[in-house]
């Protein structure tokens, strides 16, 4: 199968929310046909590594096949969260686009446009 490397942003969207020092990041492929491919490639380990520079300690992925969506919960990623963070974005709302910068390898025919 002809595959191409793209940032997740080309094939999926995401929104970040927070509770304390924990972030949740949804990941939703535009084409549900990509769901199993992302399930294989966007692992808890890879997502945790994306946030290693901020001291994240744990990542849990919840799979929602009927919605064709994932929910990643990342612990200790907000450098204290709104309680103690020195970050401009203490809620971590911008972190969804860190996730969307991750590279995935997808079948060319599933790429839009």
């Amino acid at each position: 199968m002809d595959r191409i490397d793209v940032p997740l942003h080309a094939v999926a969207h995401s929104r970040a929310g927070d509770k304390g020092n924990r972030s949740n990041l949804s990941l939703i492929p535009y084409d549900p046909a990509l769901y199993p491919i992302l399930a294989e490639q966007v692992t808890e380990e890879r997502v945790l590594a994306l946030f290693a520079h901020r001291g994240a300690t744990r990542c849990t992925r919840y799979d929602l096949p009927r919605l064709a969506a994932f929910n990643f919960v990342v612990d200790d990623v907000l450098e204290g969260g709104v309680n103690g963070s020195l970050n401009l974005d203490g809620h971590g709302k911008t972190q969804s686009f860190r996730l969307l910068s991750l590279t995935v390898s997808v079948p060319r025919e599933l790429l839009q446009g």
Partner: protein
Amino acid sequence: MSDIFLVGNGAGFSGDRVDAPIPVVRSLVARGLPAALFFETLGERTVALAQLERRRDPELGYEPMLERLLEPVLRDCVTHRIPILGNFGAANPAAAARLVARLALRLGLPECRIAVVGGDDVSSSIALDQLPVHEADDSIDTKSARLVAANAYIGAEPLVEALRQGADVVVAGRTSDPALAIAPLVHHFGWSLDDWEKLAVGAACGHLLECGSQVTGGVFWDPGFKDIPDPANIGFPIAEVTRDGGLVITKPADTGGIVDLRTVKEQLLYELHDPARYITPDVVLDISGCSVEQVGHDRVAVRGLRGHARPDTLKVTACFEGTWLGEGEVSVAGPNALARARATADVLQQRLRLRGLPVRARVDLIGIGSVLDSDAGTLWRSYDGPEPPELRIRLAAEGPDRDAVDQAAREVLALLCCGTAGTGGARWRLTPRILTRSYLVLRERVPTSVVVRSAREMLKAAGEMAGAISPAG
């Protein structure tokens, strides 16, 4: 009673677009179905800021935009029997209710019935140090911190009681956000408070609507990837709920924004952890098996929601006085901006060390590493991309000593003369921080109260009270 009930949302946070409720109410009125409108304006910390306001002025401490939000819609809502519910009472629901009463009188609605819901403020009734700590808040040290506010997230029951007593406007402080949508549904359909499957639909309705435009295109649009019509005029959401638990999300026809599978999925998962256990005071919502379907233009049906018995405990969030936060920023631009910005960052950190200021600090280079970066500046330090045309250097410092934090932030100001060539645009500020910690408390320890009066009666009573305390004023 009709089999379709409409729930509209007029605000998703304190600071939301103040003209948003107008098209929502216009749509609710035009459709002629039984309906309610709710406002969610009370974030985790908002109540602490409101409590501080109230200490300065006993007639303040509620949502500052309340009058601006309600004035254009109150008459239509009262006339068409569309009750308004909101946690806009914040730290002072009684004063917020008096403001609504004065507004109602000014609009010629003296019989407008206003409910004050109390009981959420547990700051003087419950000893926090004897309660179990909620979730991952163990690490937060509050032993020496001064309490500002402690409020329980109360459920739908007192709100339903207010509606039963004929309230046109229900003014609450801290409630769970979904309760603001669950209450009018329970009241209208007569759903039982242990009908978990129905309450799950109400909770999902509240969860999807509570952030206002976030389900209709707000914090969703991404030009070229997720375009939406007219983002300057995003319509706030309306839910259509049926007696048997059908749920469709839509929005006013004459507005911008979009309701599609993508917006609904993003908001369904927003601030959710385990999708099978979204805990509210009224029901534990399980969306793990739910599905969504586009059933029309800007219309999405949500199906397969499940509910489980409500918890025995309520969440109490306590707010304490925290440390001070000092921030300073300057800009550099043009040739060699990156080298000047990096040198500035190093000099700032050297200055804090030289002066021995007892603060924790970080430096951002806005443009190449800030919001996605770490306190150590991992991303901007390793940046090897093209020379940026401009950069903004930001220092953030925090600590318990106000003066030390202020001095740290002022080191940025000093760069106007001592900094690299072409340093400009300095800003600095000092703000007190609020520390929050959540606890669990048995629900029977949080009795709630509901008082419903007409605007006329309420102001009459307030006038007597004002007379009694006027020497102090």
